[in-house]
């Protein structure tokens, strides 16, 4: 097991995969912070005064983490942040599903889609955390810029 986790090639593939996922996820949020603020607002988990700040900063944390993972710079910090963010996403999505926030949504199609997408995103994040944990425990430090 240890040898698998520490495998250089596996770690590289996971680094690039997780990094690309974070970069991809950050881009639409960076160009449309208003839409992302609205998404955060829906969760009812963040105090109102902090929503916009979070909508502005969090996507850049994702982008920088993604880049750091792929390039292998600030690597340990990026791995910790990637794990922390994934845990927060899982917590937020679970809370949404438990609270059933979407159930009453007026946008019939959007509501159904949103409920479905919360489950889909949660499943995705549960898979993602397997990979981010692999990076956390892997001792491989090959093919990194620093």
């Amino acid at each position, binding site marked *: 097991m240890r040898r698998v986790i520490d495998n250089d090639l596996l770690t590289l593939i996971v680094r690039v995969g997780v990094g690309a996922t974070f970069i991809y996820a950050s881009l639409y949020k*960076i*160009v*449309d*912070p*208003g*839409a992302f*603020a*609205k998404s955060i*607002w*829906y969760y*009812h988990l963040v105090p*109102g*005064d902090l*929503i*916009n*700040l979070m*909508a*502005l*900063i*969090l*996507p*850049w*944390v994702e*982008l*920088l*983490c993604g880049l*750091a993972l792929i390039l292998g710079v*600030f*690597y*340990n*910090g*990026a791995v*910790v*942040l990637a794990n922390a963010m994934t845990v927060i996403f899982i917590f937020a999505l679970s809370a949404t599903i438990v609270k059933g*926030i*979407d*159930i*009453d*949504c*007026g*946008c*019939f*199609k*959007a*509501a159904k889609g*949103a409920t479905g997408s919360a489950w889909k995103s949660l499943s995705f994040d549960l898979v993602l955390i397997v990979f981010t944990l692999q990076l956390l425990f892997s001792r491989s430090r090959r093919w990194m810029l620093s």
Partner: protein
Amino acid sequence: MIRQVATILLLAAILGLGFNFVLPNRIAYIGKYRTISSGSDPIVPPNAALGDPPFIAVDVAQLEFISGGAVFIDCREPAEFECGTILGSINIPFDYLPDEDLGKYFDSILCGVPKDCPIITYCSGEECDLSLHLARNLQAFGYTKVLIFFGGSREWEKSGLPIERKRVCGE
């Protein structure tokens, strides 16, 4: 490791706050939000922009309702409209607006309603912004007193105000 985390967070904060400054669709650094259960200010969604029709709280919507001078428009799908809507509302589902001749379409549905008559758009509640989008369209086609009741039918019903149901719907 902590230093790396702090560096990434600091860099992200600088880039995020700085990039917003040059974005054409930038947002306020501190948003104004409230939930349905607190305060009496109108609910304003985060994607509201300068120049949008005004947002009204449930008490203002109620006053307009009592005075009988305003037209209430439910922007949701017919299926949801039928399940429970503000008494006397008309249904203009935002999702089914025609692509062309929108002005004529509005005029035909709001037949006889003067352009300066108060029109209140709403949907279910704060998760749904169809009311904002329809209000923008109505405003663009010359309706000058469009108001948005973002609390929607849910806040209306919670406040004990009259709801009309055309059929019984499950949860």
